[in-house]
């Protein structure tokens, strides 16, 4: 077997809250695998189980062929883990943080330098600065360097881009691409749907359940209903008009467009777009343009979320 991660029927509850509800998936060696979902989906619980920090209630999981319950010590030395919020020591300098993480794993910064160099070099000019005085983007680079310094066989990154601006996010994903090219297996979680496109495969996760696992480009092809992008003047008014259309299944704001999904699975998208154009024009919306589109990750996520049972108020 060559799965870097193998998860079978994993469940974990905290009191009455089911954080993970019968989850199964695997990650191949060398794969860049994304867990995409909002806060509260169960991503962090899953990472804590994979890094042996939490014991599952039922089901099993292995990392690098090692069982997360029985083989915890063997796993810990071979995994690079970047927890959410970066978990650096705020009173230590950049260099001290890195040296500390190297020492904990019984190695030195020098031995790991080659692997971390492309990332660490960008923050090395600030090596004497305290970690709490770093910007979000710099903290993120330091945390990644700390997770890599002992040359792990797999990298587990829990929301490394949360709270980081759009430019730093792009740069971070470029770095992950370089690490992946070196053969490292990477499991990364994110609440940003657009980042899913940078993964080999993604699992859409919500309410403790996996909604779908696929390569990012394939996810939209399973959408199953006509999807129309609508563009026009008064977006808020148009949104409400479209929702009144008798065949409307869902209408959402989407950047500078609205995305309209039709109930009729067998309707021709071009015909639906034409109908919609006439419908909104008759209701006073001028210069509206409507055309069929292929669903993206976020369209699919919302559709799958909508058809899954909604999480109740007490099961946050």
């Amino acid at each position: 077997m060559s799965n870097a991660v193998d998860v079978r029927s994993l469940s974990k509850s905290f009191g009455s809250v089911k954080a993970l509800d019968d989850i199964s998936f695997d990650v191949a060696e060398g794969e860049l695998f994304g867990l995409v979902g909002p806060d509260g989906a169960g991503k962090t619980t899953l990472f804590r189980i994979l890094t042996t920090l939490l014991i599952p209630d039922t089901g099993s999981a292995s990392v690098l062929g090692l069982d997360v319950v029985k083989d915890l010590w063997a796993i810990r030395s071979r995994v690079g883990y970047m927890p959410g919020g970066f978990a650096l020591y705020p009173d230590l300098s950049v260099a001290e943080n890195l040296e500390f993480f190297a020492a904990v794993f019984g190695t030195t910064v020098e031995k790991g330098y080659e692997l971390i160099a492309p990332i660490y070099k960008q923050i090395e000019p600030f090596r004497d600065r305290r970690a709490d005085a770093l910007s979000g983007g710099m903290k993120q680079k330091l945390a990644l360097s700390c997770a890599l310094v002992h040359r792990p066989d797999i990298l587990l990154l829990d929301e490394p881009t949360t709270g980081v601006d759009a430019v730093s996010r792009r740069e971070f994903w470029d770095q992950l691409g370089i690490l992946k090219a070196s053969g490292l297996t990477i499991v990364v979680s994110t609440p940003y749907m657009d980042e899913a496109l940078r993964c080999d495969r993604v699992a859409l996760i919500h309410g403790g359940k996996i909604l779908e696992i696929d390569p990012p480009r394939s996810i939209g092809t399973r959408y199953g209903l006509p999807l129309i992008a609508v563009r026009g003047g008064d977006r808020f008014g148009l949104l409400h008009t479209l929702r009144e259309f008798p065949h409307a299944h869902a209408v959402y704001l989407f950047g500078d467009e609205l995305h309209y999904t039709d109930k009729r699975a067998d309707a021709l998208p071009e015909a639906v777009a034409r109908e919609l154009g006439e419908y909104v024009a008759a209701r006073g919306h001028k210069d509206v343009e409507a055309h069929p589109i292929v669903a993206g990750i976020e369209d699919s996520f919302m559709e799958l979320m909508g058809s899954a049972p909604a999480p109740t108020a007490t099961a946050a």
Partner: protein
Amino acid sequence: MNFAIDARDLTRRFGSFIAVDSITFDVGAGEVFGFLGANGAGKTTAIKMLVGLLAPSEGVAHVAGFDIRTQRDQIRRNIGYMSQRFSLYADLTVRENIRLYGGIYGLTPAQIAERAATMLDTLGLSANADDLVARLPLGWKQKLAFSVALVHQPKIVFLDEPTGGVDPITRRQFWELIYAAASRGTTVFVTTHYMDEAEYCDRISIMVDGRIAALGTPTELKEKYGADSVDDVFVRLARAPKGEAA
């Protein structure tokens, strides 16, 4: 004057570091204004000055018609504020949170009771009024926090990354609440890292290294920079200079 916010040459220094460097802009009443910028560009410092938490080094600004140097108390009574990190007390119930904030903003018990009922009804939370906020799903918390920030019917509401980590459906529902508030005349001043949300704003500004590098409607900015999306405009303007601003 009909500006909810007007800032002229607003500047803030920390020692030799210029966090906010002579920014000038205005926000119209009822406008949804997106205040964008990379981490460390100066957004938080600028917001702190506007809400009266930090004195400017130079420049002038008015919020809801009041001077940010001399009329901080009036400003606080006329603005609402909500951030992703902190807004509601998790160990209080939904109703207690509404009552607490209503009291802080000086509403009478009768006003609080009436607005709480309307708010719970609008949000579909009437059945959960006596639940602890800690037990609400994140998306509900965020919608409640937004409504609570509006409980004293402020002229302007400041939203600091209100939708971080929220699922895509709830994010959109949140923006519909923003539109609804704006259509009632409330001015909305919002920051976000989601670039699709920048497209929902009437106008946006993009801060780079303490300055406002671009300001206009999303359409104007896309045309000016020949970009397909605000995301492209943002990346082009905010691409971090070497080192410091990473």
